[in-house]
């Protein structure tokens, strides 16, 4: 849309910045053109930072009257071709779910940064608590798939936000960045790559060539049997259905008498592309018989715990989920098949991911949860469990 403005990119090199700011800068680098938000601790720095930065790059930062308005304006902006996002915390997310579900139906790309805080209700507003993991997965009425990425450092907040925007463009589904009160307020050194390197990575919002104009929404190619996700339609151009209805629709956007086909299209576009969406990391997994599965901040404590445990002779490794949703079933199954025990440290009481691991392993391998609420896992907490299960 708008041509690339020199103020869009920070100077390459090292910068000390807060997590929320790193996330915002990542979004700007990815081509963010519209931000709609409403202040809420601990995500407020995002809107404050973007209120300064967006006009500098010819973009828009709107403080809307509430979260319902923010997310609706984000969808509106995305529909006319702007890369758009919002940032909020749990209570804001709760208000936004209706619109997320509408956006999933219309396959409107947008990025959603959830800086999680303690709940339920208002909770301790400045304390981290990964308690929106479940809400994010089922963030609205109806069935649809989301992508959720869990960074664990300010550098990753920058990098993964660019990935999130690319996923939004490619898969046209709600993409979440799962930050939290600690990560959002953490100050760390972030290395900003040169502008050219960033631009190489970024998938720009473009119109397809005119002969492809007819296909607008996800559909199954009759010849290959594969799902094709066309580029997002843009209001104000000819590449847009005359009518955008959030009803089961065919690839042209018209209501379809075959809701099952529509359902398959919006579910399978993610399910069938899991290999590209699910980002994972392995640490000392080769000979490990005790496996830690973690995401977000607890991964950092796990690294330390594993290093100490390895020195003491325990065969333990980490399987890190960078993409939390969709859950990488096959990969987890593959990693844990010979494991003696699985440890899942999570910054919540329920163990949302532990439940997924239980589902995948059909409860055949012992799973030990280490729940923490409003506080970090200390490496010792994890080390203690490693030693117990190794006995």
């Amino acid at each position, binding site marked *: 849309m708008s041509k690339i403005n020199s103020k869009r990119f920070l100077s390459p090199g090292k910068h000390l910045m807060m997590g929320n700011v790193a996330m915002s800068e990542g979004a700007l680098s990815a081509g963010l053109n519209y931000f709609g938000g409403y202040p809420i601790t601990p995500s407020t720095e995002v809107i404050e930072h973007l209120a300064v930065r967006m006009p500098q790059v010819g973009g828009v930062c709107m403080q809307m009257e509430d979260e319902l308005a923010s997310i609706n304006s984000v969808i509106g902006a995305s529909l006319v071709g702007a890369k758009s996002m919002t940032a909020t915390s749990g209570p804001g997310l709760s208000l936004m779910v209706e619109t997320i579900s509408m956006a999933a139906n219309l396959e409107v790309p947008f990025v959603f940064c959830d800086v999680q805080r303690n709940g339920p209700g208002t909770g301790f507003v400045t304390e981290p608590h990964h308690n929106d993991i479940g809400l994010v997965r089922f963030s609205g009425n109806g069935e649809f798939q989301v992508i959720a990425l869990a960074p664990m450092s300010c550098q990753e907040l920058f990098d993964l936000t660019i990935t999130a925007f690319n996923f939004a463009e490619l898969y046209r589904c709600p993409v979440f960045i799962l930050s939290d009160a600690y990560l959002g307020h953490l100050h760390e050194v972030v290395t900003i790559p040169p502008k050219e390197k960033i631009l190489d990575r970024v998938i720009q919002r473009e119109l397809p060539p005119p002969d492809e104009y007819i296909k607008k929404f996800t559909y199954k190619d009759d010849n290959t049997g594969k799902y094709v996700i066309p580029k997002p339609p843009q209001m104000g151009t000819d590449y847009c259905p005359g009518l955008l209805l959030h009803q089961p629709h065919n690839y042209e956007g*018209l209501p379809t008498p075959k809701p099952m086909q529509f359902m398959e299209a919006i579910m399978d576009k993610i399910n069938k592309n899991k290999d590209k969406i699910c980002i994972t990391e392995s640490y000392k997994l080769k000979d490990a018989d005790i496996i830690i599965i973690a995401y977000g901040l607890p991964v950092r404590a796990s690294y330390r715990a594993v290093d100490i445990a390895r020195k003491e002779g325990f065969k333990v490794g980490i399987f890190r989920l960078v993409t939390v949703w969709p859950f990488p079933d096959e990969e987890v199954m593959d990693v844990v098949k010979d494991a003696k025990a699985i440890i899942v440290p999570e910054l919540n009481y329920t163990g949302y991911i532990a439940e997924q691991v239980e589902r995948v392993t059909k409860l055949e391998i012992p799973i030990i949860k280490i729940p923490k609420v409003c506080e970090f896992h200390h490496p010792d907490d994890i080390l203690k469990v490693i030693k117990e299960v190794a006995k």
Partner: protein
Amino acid sequence: MSDIGRMLPNEKPEHPYVPFSYAGSMFGNFATRFCSGCGYGIIGHLFTKIFEDEKLDPHLFPTIIGIGCYSQLLLIVHTKSQKILALHGRAPALATGIKMANPNMKPIIFSGDGDCLGIGGNHFIHLCRRNLDCVIFIFNNSIYAMTGGQGAPTTLFGAQSTTTPYKMFENRSDGVELAVAAGATYVARTTVAHPRTFMKYFKKALNHKGTSVIEVITPCVTYFGRKNLDSLGAENREGEGEKMDTGQKMIDWIKQNTIRRNQAKLMTEDQLLNKYVIGEFRYQTDKPEYSDEYNKIQKFAMEEK
């Protein structure tokens, strides 16, 4: 569902604007899903007429439609206009995003009395407050029609609905006064019984830079008319009169109960209790418009060292 064509009448009316309507262009017939006697058909065709006659650029005038019976206006509005169905009450917020991301556009918003003054009241207030360049219609049928005739914030005093089965005793909210207080710069009210004024106001709104609010009083025969007597609004005639079960009766009732603004100035609050005051309530061209002001900020921020 998608077999809408089958559900439509086969008669081919001579209405000159039918071929320009969305369903008309597809099926070649007069397509509507409204009850007979409903006012929304009139509104849809007036809209299509203006859209065609004024040669509005479909790329610049998207239509954002809220949720209510009037959502089905999408079948009658101009086939070329790009239409999007918003969520219940959220159309003003969606339009804000559209307008701010592409300031060349001028969104036209359709919303109902329940949509705009009930569930979406906050968005409406802030749309007016920002004076964002767009046109917003409030279709006031005094009832929540789509869900089966429940009381709305605009339901008249003493009227019956399924959720006010004895009588409505709440105060009525006035979309026009709300819009004026919130800061909209062109505010008017008309009815479907006054199509010429409707067209005049709509054209004026299209040429106005800022938020234009047009409230349109429209009959709902099925859920308002059949339940209420035509003495509603008339003084000292409680319990008298007959049910307004046809479009004609409702249009007559609307005409009886509308008062021009200059006349209304001479009347007391009591006399105006269940009346609709029509006319232009505000027309101010010198107030700053939001997207213009934001553009100034962008220019400043981009040039700043």
